[in-house]
């Protein structure tokens, strides 16, 4: 549904870094044209910007596109107006989660589990992360997910990219947590 909500736009501009740059967009289509995930997007970035500009915040926050970004930087490098497309997409994803709108649950789950691992150990335990990610949709789906990725798991084991024993926390994990806490405080200001 198309709706105009000016206050909501004001909040987006306040909460999302670089969001004011949406007004520079000339709707050329370079962002999506350069994006490796363009065929999976419901709205290309330029449309996200146009929707924001016209106050259709709900459509944007419910869009899958904002959760798809893999941070490859192609759009930022090529945008003829120098818009921080990638940062805005990430910012919108964070804002959507904050507003309780999670259009791609698995992306959010993966991101949150990844972050928890980093906070806990200072490194990622591949098998712990994938277990939590795979089973986030229940046991049956979890087994299916795990089996579909079994080949890659074996290769990772053989190359020492994944270990059978649990990963140990890094040295100085407490200092790292102090830094992460501080960073989070700063980002909220």
């Amino acid at each position, binding site marked *: 549904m198309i709706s105009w909500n000016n206050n909501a736009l004001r909040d987006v501009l306040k909460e999302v870094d670089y969001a004011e740059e949406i007004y520079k967009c*000339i*709707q*050329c*289509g*370079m962002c*999506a*044209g*350069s994006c490796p995930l*363009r*065929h999976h997007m419901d709205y*290309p970035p*330029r*449309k996200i910007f146009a929707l924001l500009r016209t106050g259709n915040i709900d459509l944007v926050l419910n869009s899958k596109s904002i959760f798809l970004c893999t941070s490859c930087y192609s759009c930022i*490098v*090529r*945008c*003829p*107006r*120098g818009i921080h497309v990638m940062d805005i997409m990430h910012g919108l994803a964070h804002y959507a989660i904050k507003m309780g709108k999670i259009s791609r649950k698995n992306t959010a789950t993966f991101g949150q589990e990844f972050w928890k691992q980093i906070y806990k150990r200072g490194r990622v335990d591949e098998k712990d992360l994938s277990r939590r990610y795979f089973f986030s949709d229940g046991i049956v789906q979890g087994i299916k997910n795990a089996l579909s990725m079994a080949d890659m798991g074996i290769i990772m084991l053989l190359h020492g990219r994944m270990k059978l024993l649990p990963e140990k926390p890094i040295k100085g994990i407490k200092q790292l947590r102090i830094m992460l806490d501080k960073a989070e405080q700063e980002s909220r200001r």
Partner: protein
Amino acid sequence: MEATNQNILVVGGGMSGVTAALEAAEAGYNVILVEKRPYLGGKVTQFYHYFPKLCPPNCGLEINFKRMKQNPRIRFFTMAEPVKISGKEGDYDVTIKISPRYVTEKCTCCGKCEEVCETEIDNPFDFGLSKIKAIYLPHEFAFPMRYVMDPSIVGTEEAKKCQQACPYGAIDLDMKEQVFDIKAGAIIWAAGWEPYEANKIEYYGFGEYKNLITNVMMERLAAPNGPTDGKILRPSDNKEVKKIAFVQCAGSRDENHLPYCSGVCCLASLKQALYVREKNPESEVTIFYIDIRALDRYEDFFTKVKQDEKINFIRSKIATITEEENTGDLIVEGEDTHKGEQIRMKFDMVVLATGLVPNTINIEAPDVPKDKFGFILRDDVVKGIYGAGCVRRPTDVATSVQDATAAAIKAIQSISRR
């Protein structure tokens, strides 16, 4: 009262420079014109047709050259460029450098030297699309009508062979670079423009793919005196081009390249689309654009081109161009922003509509106000040196001519007001 030198120096012998020189000379002032290339006429000599009338540039040039021959007040030097300007309004000292041509005024263009010469070089007149002998006439309508020897063969046996072949003794292999000073009261800088270097747009792959050319190269493909005798054949296999794409704003309106709009590339592509359609009625043209900027009276031209059903307009800034391995065809990808769809289309040849970069004052000279892109501003605070044509803003031929006339009156005012 200080003495004011009554000479006007014009830098650049293209459409703007020639016009400025003629207008000033016909008003009774002495003009010295210097041109870097071996002939006058500049970029328009390389063009097939002008828009919107689709007439060839030669006739206009011929008229100007005739005016020039009849006017004793103009002295011009080809293969010449200024290397240093000093002084102030009314009293400039300019150092001019003339590169050796190795061919004197005795040349009758009989072509005997070219017959014996074997070395070939990239033809600068065709932007490297063809080869030319190392002693050559720049083009059929060259003014002055005289051969040039490429410095690469000077000092070789080949050069001596050419010299011996000349029945008129017109080849002087001992010719040296000359540097001399001239005095001028006012200077008109009309050094023109260069096309933006398309290989800087790395996601298009210009230079890598043979069938990816620029708009200036397209002019040569269409011109009857060009590398393909006016047939639009693609460079990889000389196949007649049936499906062709024009990619607008290739590097223009882009903060990573040229942030400004060059204003003429849209019209040039519309014109070139007509070249293709006229030469091959079965051809199909697709123009990818952000906005078609055909302003003012040029909108009629856009309307005319739009009526051709075989010319499609798709609103998209093309994101990637790749080459199909066996065929040499090019695959163009981007987003159709009207339909909101991702597109992937195949073409025989793709033309990049690159923008104009000004040949701004880049030598030791008094400070002249310029914008951040190097375009010379006409500022009434600084007098004595005036830009004309594309060094002031990217523009078409008609506007350059008007602008050059304006620059001529500015220069005349500058030397006559005291």
